């Protein structure tokens, strides 16, 4: 009947058992982490924390044991992710490799690439970054100009990638480069790039909070071997599109401001006034519903379906939700946001107030997502 459908997804009993294990682990490990760091959750990196998660078997959960994975279900993985995010765990170091780089290599990579790379990701030893955006190619990803030319047996890369989160820590990048100018979408190829390769320069860019997590990465005559190509030459656009369905529907797309909801509940107390109660009830209804939509998409991914449109809807509705929370809380509670006082409420409000603009930019801007939804409705 409609262009999209969100079927119910029931978490299996083993997923709920796993939830208890994750909560016990977090109850031990999280108390030492300051509130404003917890507010940042997956945009905060702690390599040691990532390795501890890997040791628990919570990185590479759904991958084949052949490549160091744990062969748990997609929905079990979902439960671990949402618990980590809800607690505000600093999971940024391994997040990208776990969410999309390794799945991409497993889907499109060569046997040698899978064996060399994926088991180390599962151990929390290799971290990844994504080389997509460029100075003149943001939302218009197909306008990618950074180029890869054949050079001897291999390739030579030149150009600049921008807004590359975690490039300063990452061991590898999966980068999208132009290998042909004859076709806009068909001339793109993905490469597996060792970040230690000569000719790569990573320049950190501070965001408006002063925190340095994203970067400009320049490539000057960077030489790669022939087997650095992931998937097919000219297949980059199709591969990136598949990758984005994983990137857009997860619980990180609506839980980014959850710490502030926790702080709000603590601040309004057990007997709130009408305004505070109404705001809290409304946020609860939105959160419960978004989680159900996101779980529904996880169920579709687990069944091997293609939920590109549903994933875009979750991310768009989710970003509106997580983005409006600091404004709502600020109107209700008369406390000035600051990172300079030992007041968890003021710190979390400060951190989230400042980082919310990124929620509707990262992983596809609001405008790009609404374009995808409009196409799904038959308007484009």
């Amino acid at each position, binding site marked *: 009947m409609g262009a999209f459908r969100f079927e119910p997804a029931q978490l299996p009993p083993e997923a709920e058992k796993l939830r208890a294990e994750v909560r016990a682990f977090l109850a031990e490990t999280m108390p030492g982490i300051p509130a404003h760091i917890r507010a940042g959750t997956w945009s905060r990196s702690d390599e040691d924390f990532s390795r501890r998660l890997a040791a628990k078997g919570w990185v590479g959960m759904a991958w084949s044991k052949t490549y160091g994975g744990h062969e748990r279900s997609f929905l079990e993985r979902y439960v671990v992710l949402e618990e980590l995010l809800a607690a505000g765990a600093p999971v940024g170091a391994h997040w990208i490799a776990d969410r999309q780089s390794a799945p991409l290599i497993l889907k499109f990579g060569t046997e040698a690439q899978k064996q060399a790379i994926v088991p180390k990701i599962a151990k929390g030893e290799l971290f990844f970054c994504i080389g997509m955006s460029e100075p003149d190619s943001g939302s218009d990803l197909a306008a990618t100009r950074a180029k890869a030319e054949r050079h001897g047996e291999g390739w030579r890369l030149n150009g600049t990638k921008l807004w590359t989160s975690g490039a300063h820590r990452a061991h590898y990048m999966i980068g999208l480069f132009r290998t042909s100018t004859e076709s806009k979408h068909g001339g793109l190829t993905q490469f597996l790039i060792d970040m230690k390769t000569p000719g790569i320069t990573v320049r950190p860019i501070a965001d408006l909070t002063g925190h340095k997590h994203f970067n400009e990465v320049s490539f000057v005559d960077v030489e790669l071997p022939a087997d650095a190509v992931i998937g097919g030459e000219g297949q980059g656009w199709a591969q990136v599109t598949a990758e984005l369905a994983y990137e857009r529907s997860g619980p990180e797309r609506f839980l980014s401001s959850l710490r502030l909801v926790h702080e709000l*509940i603590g601040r309004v107390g*057990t007997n709130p006034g009408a305004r505070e109660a109404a705001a809290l009830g409304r946020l609860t209804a939105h959160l419960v*519903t978004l989680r159900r939509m996101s779980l529904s998409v996880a169920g579709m991914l687990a069944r091997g379906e293609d939920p590109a449109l549903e994933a875009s*809807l979750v991310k768009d509705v989710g970003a509106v939700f997580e983005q409006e929370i600091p404004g709502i809380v600020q109107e209700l509670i008369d406390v000035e946001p600051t990172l300079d006082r030992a007041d968890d409420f003021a710190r979390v409000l400060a951190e989230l107030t400042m980082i919310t603009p990124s929620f509707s930019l990262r992983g596809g801007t609001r405008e790009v997502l609404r374009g995808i939804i409009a196409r799904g409705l038959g*308007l484009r």
Partner: protein
Amino acid sequence: MDESRTILEESANKLFAGFAEPALLRRVEAGEAAPEVWAAIEAMGFELIFSGASDDPWRDAAVILKACGRHVLPAPLPETLMTAALMQCAGLELEGVPKPVTLGAPAHTELALAEGGSVTGRTSHLAWGHVCTHAALPMLGQLVLAPLDGRSQGDRSIGREPRDSHVFVSVTPVASGPLNEQLFTAAGALMRAAQMAGAIEAVLEMTVQYARERHQFGKPIGSFQAIQHQLAILAGHSAAATRAADAAFERIAQSGGDADVMLFEAAVAKIRCGEAATAAASIAHQTFGAIGFTDEHKLHYFTRRLWSWRSEFGSAGWWSQKLGRSVAAAGNDAFWPMVTAAG
């Protein structure tokens, strides 16, 4: 969705689509009876879902209620179904009671016990009261099923659906059983939420279709980004409303009709669907322009009902306060576990 429910959905939509004609809707809104609508419903047995006709009545009811909303069905089938659901919660059967029947809201009902077990008092805002045989009403922690004698006084909602007042003088209930009175509001809210979800789906479809057909500045208005993005927002609200309504009925089914689950799910669904209704009506009217604001056009049969249903059995704001108080009372450590336990 399982196959039998898909068939149920298709047959309900097919039947109800035939009644979604402005000529019929206009007649019923003007107060004329349309007995053929109820006769057709009874021929299909849709009113018996909670009376043994379904082995999964809550999930089947969700399908029927959304179809009622999708086609703005001019008959009290939603009210009959939710009355039967409440009767079941009170350990009662609706079998043998002629239908349609309806249910009253605690906020608009004052009943007292009179001599010999009879009841005296009044109720108002009673949906479709004058065409129903009985009303399920709250009284002193009981559900009483009181006969309506056809002398209901007629008000109408802005959906121009009957919302009647009825006075009871020493009336003997045909059935009664213990029931938390909050469940009347919850059942009504669940019913209106599912109807809103269905109506919003219909509004999305008709608005997208219009945007593809209507030309201005030499091209379809749906080719303009300004329109595309508004319709994308509407699609997001529709997706959320439908998931909220469906999930509510799924979870109530899983819990076997648990009262706490009903109250929580009614709150979530009414809040989310109510907010979606506001956005959907606004975006649809803006897209349709002046023609959508005319009596002649069918859009208002949907939007007037959305505006009416979002207020009935507790507005989004009323439910938000209620849900927010329970969240606050439980404290912040209980918040996330509550969200995940909701499934």
